[in-house]
Every structure is written in C-alpha cells, then in structure tokens.
C-alpha cells in the first residue's frame, strides 16, 4: 500500500491555512527582530546625543580641537584622546593586517594536514575569547618589560624620528597598540580566511592550469578575489580597535596630553570614559557623552570611508 498525498482540490485558498499563518508569523517575528536591532542603535544615539546637548552648546566644535581636559574649571576638549584613539588603532592595524592576512593565507592553503589546521584555526579564534582585562594584565606584567629593550634601542638609534622621541618607560601608546594588535588578530585572520576558503575552487584551478605557481595564484587571483571580504575583516577589526577599553586603559597611561612619541603615555576616548564616568557630575558627564558621540561618529566615518574605498577598487 502506498500512501498518497492529498492533492489540493481547490487552488483558491478560502479562509485560513495553518501553513500560511505560520509563514506570516515567521515573517513578522524576523521583521520585528531585524527592526529592534536598528531601533536599539537609534535609541542609544538619541540618548547619548541628548545627554551631550549641554556640552555641545557650551563648547561647540571647538571641543574637538581643544587640548585641555580640566574638570576643575569645567573646560573640556578631546583632541588628545582622538589622537590617542587613532594612533593606537593605527599601530594595531599596521601590525595586525600583515600578520592576520598572512595567517589567513597560510590557514586557507593545504600546507598543513587538515586535522592540524583545524586545531590551529580554533586556537586563533580562541584568542578572541580571552577577556580584555586579562590582556591588560598580561600587557602590564609581560609585554611592557618584554618590549623595553627594543623600545630603548629604537629611542637610541632612531630617536630623531618624533615617534620614538621620548625615552621609554612603562605604559604608553606602543604597549596599548601592541595589545590591541593581538586582540584584533583573530577577527582579521578568521574572516579573511573565510573569505579565501569560500572562493570557488575553479579560480585556483584556472590559474594553476595556466602555469601559475601557488604564490602567483594567491597574490594575483585569490587575494584580489577575496579583497572585499578581507577589507570587511579589517573594518570590523578597526571598529574593535577604536572602541577597545579595558586593556587599553590599563596600558596607555591615561595622560590627557598629545605626545607624538609612541613611548609616551596618552589616552583614548573609550579609556577617558571608563576612567572618569564614575566620578563625573554636571557638565563633565555631558562632555563625556559628547566624547562618546565623537567616537561613534569617528567609527561611522571610518566605516563609510572604507566602503567607499572598496567600491572604488572593487569594480568587479
């Protein structure tokens, strides 16, 4: 006996069909969740924006170019923190992009047996699971002593370059930048690797079939084809680098001065917020909110700029 499927006798649906209702419910639930994510973003922006209004009215755009952060006289400016944020992120990207993309290439090729590669990929991704405060402690007790000889050598031999201008001692932009490098590595490696492994195998075969070596294939075909994915990875990493708080606060020295030297202490916007929010009152709270808004705008600007660059380069 073969059980037969009941054929629909009427093609026009009259009344309610349980399948269709479920379908509609499903669509509405996903729609609701999708909108709620956007809504949270909008609400946070509005909240930060309204809280920042007093500071915006008091300082206007000069807030961005002011160098002093003086709670006693209620005079605030965030240029040193903007500089610190950009500088630590820049150092981190400068080191993390070559290391991360190379690891991604290495892990997407068949240099290692699959089992060993899987373990390595897992370990790289595990880097992202280490709590920020642990990175901070590691930075204080291991990284800072570790890089001291190198920093001193750099200062002595290349001291005429402003970036190595001050004598190294303890916390500063460089250790903060180095720890952020390690923190954003798994993002760059994992996403770039995904972009590389999801390329159609036909691309590799076509290139190899034309007499290209493995490196020619990687450099000339695979990397350009995965370019947008790799830039996406870098953007996500940059977002994390600019917003990273705990480890940076522990390592950067929290000095609200601009010093071009990487060995000098500095500050970032997020560290400023973390350090001062608990004790702030009155206009200072508003100024901190304003600083937060600027970080928000900065991240947004960098992302849009990156999208634009990708669009320009990646026409295909």
């Amino acid at each position, binding site marked *: 006996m073969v059980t037969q499927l009941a054929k629909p006798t009427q093609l026009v649906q009259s009344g309610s069909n349980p399948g269709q209702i479920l379908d509609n419910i499903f669509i509405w639930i996903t729609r609701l969740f999708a909108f709620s994510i956007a809504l949270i973003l909008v609400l946070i922006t509005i909240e930060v924006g309204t809280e920042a209004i007093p500071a915006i009215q008091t300082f206007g755009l000069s807030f961005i170019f002011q160098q002093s952060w003086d709670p006693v006289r209620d005079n605030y400016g965030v240029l040193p923190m903007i500089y610190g944020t950009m500088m630590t992120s820049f150092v981190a990207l400068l080191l993390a992009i070559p290391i991360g993309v190379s690891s991604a290439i290495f892990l997407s090729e*068949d240099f290692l047996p699959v089992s060993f590669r899987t373990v390595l990929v897992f370990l790289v991704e595990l880097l992202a699971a280490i709590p920020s405060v642990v990175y901070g402690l590691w930075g204080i007790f291991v990284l800072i002593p570790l890089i001291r000889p190198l920093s001193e050598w750099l200062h002595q031999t290349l001291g005429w370059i402003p970036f190595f201008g001050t004598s190294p001692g303890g916390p500063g932009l460089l250790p903060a930048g180095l720890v952020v490098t390690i923190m954003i590595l798994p993002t760059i490696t994992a996403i770039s690797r995904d972009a590389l492994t999801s390329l*159609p195998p*036909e*691309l*590799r*075969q*076509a*290139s*190899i*079939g*034309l*007499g*290209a*070596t493995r490196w*020619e294939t990687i450099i*000339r*075909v695979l990397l*350009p*084809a995965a370019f947008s994915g790799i830039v996406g990875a870098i953007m996500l990493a940059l977002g994390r680098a600019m917003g990273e708080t705990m480890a940076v606060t522990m390592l950067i020295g929290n000095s609200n001065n601009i010093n071009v030297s990487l060995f000098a202490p500095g500050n970032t916007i997020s560290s400023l917020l973390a350090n001062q929010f608990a004790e702030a009152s009155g206009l200072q709270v508003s100024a901190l909110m304003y600083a937060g808004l600027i970080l928000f705008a900065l991240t947004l600007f960098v992302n849009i700029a990156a999208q634009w660059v990708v669009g320009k380069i990646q*026409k*295909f």
Partner: protein
Amino acid sequence: MTYSSPQTHIQGQSQADEVALEAVNLNIYYGSFLAVKDVSLKIARNKITSFIGPSGCGKSTLLRCFNRLNDLIESFHIKGQIYHENQDLYSRRVDPVLVRRRIGMVFQKPNPFPKSIYDNVAYGPRINGFKGNLDELVEQSLRQAVLWDEVKDKLKQSGAALSGGQQQRLCIARTIAVQPDVVLMDEPCAALDPISTLKIEELMNELKKQYTIVIVTHNMQQASRISDKTAFFNVQATERGGKQGYMVEFDDTVNIFTNPREVQTRDYVAGRFG
C-alpha cells in the same frame, strides 16, 4: 628488464612528429584505490581527440593527468608514464608548473577571473614573463577565440559580465594566450546553450590547425561531429564496491561510431547501454 622502457621511448620518437601525448600503461590511483586501469593511447598532433563514456569512467581524471592538474589532489598518484614530446611528464625532475604552460586546460564551468576581459587574457602571458606587445597578443588571442568583435569596445569591463558562451570563449582565449602545444577541454560545452556550443565547436575546428585538442564530452553527437579520434571508456564495479574506469576502444571517430570493434562501444554509441 631495463630495456623495455627505452624501447617504448624509441617507438614514441619515431612518431614524435605526429604524437602529441602518449600514455603508457597508465594506472591512476586515489590513495590505494585504482580509479582508472591500464590506459595506453597516443594522441595525434593537430587533431581533435575526444574521450567519451558514462559518468565515473575516469575520462576527466585521465584528462587532468595530462597537465598534472590532479597534483592538487593529495591522495592522487599514477603508475605508468605519460610522454609529451618524449619527455615523461611525471618524471621526478619535471616541474608541473612548466608542464601546465605547455598543456593548457579549459574547464566545464566557464571560470573567468574576477578581472577585466583584458586582464583575464593577459594573466597567463604576464605570469610567464611575456616581453612582447601584450595588447597585440590579447587581441590575437581574442580573435582566435572568435570573441574579439564582441568585446573589443569593452576590454576594461569585468569578464564575469559576459554571457556563459562568451565567458567560455574568453577562457579559451586565456588558455591560448600562453601559446600551449595542447589544449585540454573538460566538457567545455556542458554549461552552454546549443548556439554557444556550435560556436565553440567551430572554434575548435579552427584551433586544431595550431593546437592539439583533447576534449571530454558527454555529448556523443559532439564527439562524432568534431573529433578525428575517439576513445571510449567504461566503468566496472570492483570487488570492494568502488568503481573503476578503463578504456574500451580507441580508434578513428568514424570507426567508433559506425563500425566499432567492441560490443560495449556499439551499445553505448547506439544509446543501448547496460
């Protein structure tokens, strides 16, 4: 014992002018699994040779041995020899990269690089250190692939924007831009409509004046229309439950389709298979 190999060598040499590729007692393995059993055949220069047979008979695997593309598969290895102009392609001292510069490949699915039409064709010459006039070579290759008139005004556009048939001709142009001796084609028309297929077939007839062509096809009309020689492969079950390919018959295409020696071939080309 030691004389047997030089002897085949000398045999090959006497016909070196006509033979582009020669497989001698070729066994293809994946790990310990014998996928294609004991193939010996000679592929004639400036002719189109087609490989036909049911799925799993190893015809594509064999094709990919000719330019060492199977090297990408880890467990793959062969026993036996493949000669190209009296050089054993699987000799230890042979660089597979150089083999692929002499023996090009066109794939089943059109696979242009995500680059411009121009850069697609120029890719091979560039990596091979081509010193001459690249514009000229690109134009010449596109003309040979009968694509020039359709793309000459949009060379900077992406190759992916072309139609499937155009993409496949672009891939052919890309392959012949490195000026190989042999062009291998792995079901080049399987993803194309009949009109594009016809264009590719006309193109192959032009190309064989300059190149030796080996084509794998599921389309028996195609094999009978375009090829000079045809090899029929079949598949048999092994004791261990796997499938093993072997060559049944290799002859002039006319003989394969009108007067085959083997019953299996007759049944297959007549569409009575089993």
